[in-house]
């Protein structure tokens, strides 16, 4: 009895939304894409990268423009200043909009973090939504920054100082907004009806079960195969894909003990262990998939089906 209890708990957890960041998005074709919300780290990382790019660009432009003014008359210099002012404005306000309106719906920072902006309702990401979510950055980032700078360097004596601090606290509420909702929405996302989701590059690795090796050497009995469930299969898959010799050794030993593998272990041969694990993986997957076809998903080793 003791063993069945945890199995029930894990079963509900496993089959229904294994990840709390998963959100349902049903395509018009009726398939749930199971979008993943970008986590806070990816969001901050992307923003820092973008900020860095913006600063570098601004410095580079300043440098180039100031270099090109040498030997110019007053009118030329003035045009350069005008160009710089406009450029700085557009960089600050339209950097994000420009990239997010593109086909990838992501700034360079977001591309690097493999995330993108998407419409919360599904369907098109409209240009005005991109505009709205980025206009709010003025409130979420630049206003707290301005308050912070004036709190640090400006007048901070008496009432004015207190007002600056109050303003700082007030504006930080907007900056920290994403921490207080489960979808990690910025104030801008809320207004625009958007969210930021993961959009990883599709990478297809080799099928572990398809690796045509002389697997005939390892023949497992029904009972030996039935030692594990889907959860363990997935752990085994990850171990094999990472291919770390130490972990492989440990896992091999554990499985051999669990299924009472009669053959003595060749302790110093990593390849032999890999082969063994691969064979066991294929056998286990075959067995579990057959069950799956008959409507039984054996979640883990405690599952008695």
């Amino acid at each position, binding site marked *: 009895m003791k063993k069945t209890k945890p199995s029930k708990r894990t079963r509900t957890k496993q089959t229904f939304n294994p990840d709390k960041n998963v959100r349902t998005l049903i*395509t018009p*074709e009726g398939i749930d*894409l199971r*979008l993943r919300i970008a986590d806070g780290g990816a969001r901050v990382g992307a923003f820092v990268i973008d900020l860095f790019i913006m600063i570098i660009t601004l410095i580079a432009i300043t440098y180039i423009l100031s270099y090109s003014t040498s030997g110019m008359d007053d009118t030329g210099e*003035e045009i350069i200043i*005008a*160009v710089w*002012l406009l450029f*700085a*404005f557009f960089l600050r*306000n339209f950097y994000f909009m420009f990239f997010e309106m593109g*086909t990838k*719906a992501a700034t360079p920072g977001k591309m690097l973090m493999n995330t*993108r902006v*998407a419409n*919360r309702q*599904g369907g*098109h*990401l*409209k*240009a*005005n*939504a991109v*505009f*709205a979510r980025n*206009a709010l*950055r*003025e*409130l979420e980032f630049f*206003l707290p920054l301005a308050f912070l700078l004036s709190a640090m360097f400006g007048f901070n004596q008496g009432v004015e100082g207190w007002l600056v601090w109050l303003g700082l606290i007030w504006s930080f509420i*907007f900056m920290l907004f994403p921490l207080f909702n489960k979808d990690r929405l910025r*104030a801008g996302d*809320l*207004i*625009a*009806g958007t969210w930021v989701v993961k*959009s*990883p590059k*599709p990478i*297809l690795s080799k*099928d572990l*079960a*398809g690796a045509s090796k002389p*697997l*005939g050497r390892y*023949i497992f009995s029904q009972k030996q195969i039935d030692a594990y469930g889907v959860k363990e*299969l*997935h752990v085994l898959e*990850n171990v094999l*894909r990472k291919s770390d010799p130490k972990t492989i050794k440990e896992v091999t030993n554990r499985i051999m003990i669990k299924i009472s593998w009669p053959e003595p272990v060749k302790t110093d041969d990593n390849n032999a262990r890999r082969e063994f694990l691969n*064979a066991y*993986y*294929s*056998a286990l*997957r*075959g067995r*579990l*998939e057959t069950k*799956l*076809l008959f409507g039984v998903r054996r979640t883990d080793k405690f599952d008695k089906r």
Partner: protein
Amino acid sequence: MTGISLKSHKFRLDREDDWKQLEVLLKRLENRSIRSLTDAEMIALPALYRATLSSLSVARATSLDQDVISYLESLSTRSYFAIYGNQMRMTSRIKHFFQVGWPRAVQNLTKETIASALIMFLGALLAYVLVRTNMDWYFSFIPESLMDTRTPASTTIELRETLYHSGDESGLTAFASFLFSHNARIAILAFALGFAFAIPSVVLILYNGCTLGAFVALFVDKGLGFEVGGWLIIHGATEIFAIILAGAAGMNIGWSLAFPGKKSRMEAASSAGSEAAIVLGGVVIMLFLAGLLEGYGRQLITNDFIRYIVGFSTLGLWLAYFYMPREIDEWNVEDTGELS
């Protein structure tokens, strides 16, 4: 039990080519545009996409290979976004924005625009009355950076000089672009502050009105009322209108957050936000024009009557553009507002 003949492995081998083909097309689609695909590829794309989606649902039901499932999930998600994403050309988006999107969004905000204009007018009136009764109020309304030589202590001649400062034409371009980026920042802030239940937007508009009123009061006090009117209206017709619209957009957001009505708060906020964003986009354009008018027009045109004529005609043009009734057909085209 050798594992060679796993059904899920066969399944993968049979379909892998389709997936890879979709991956290639997708990469081209994302990196360039839909026009980089040939006709044959265009026809193949939706079929490959649907095949991949069906592979995904079969794999979820029958395969235990995590790698294949996560691959198919990310491939399907990317293709979904590429296929159902916006493939509108930039030129037609821009055309739609000017023809339909912008004036319609402004019309939808008529109530807020009137409120915003009244608040600004109220601020101006208040400051005007206060400054006329006691000049000391002037210093509370006008920030030092704007003051320059325009203080109550200045003589009428000095003040007149600031209205017709001309002759020296250099510096206009930089001045115009400074004015634009400064004003546009204020407008975006007025919009963004709407998020805090509109109150800061209202305060910002009121404060802008106060500055305006105090400014006019100073000049009227020295008998330069008519002249300052011309000085203001030549660019103010565009600039002040734009700031009023930005405030209206902010108020709309704040209002719908505070009083969402029948919709959920989130829905109300996002529908108000995307509508107001169109207005704000237009406001930036208006401020760009206002910057040109202020930087060049005002400095080069020093005749009061011409200033008034230019000011009133721009105001008339804006009002006609935004509020003139259009043919119904035109409004209903693309009624979803997707393009703008």
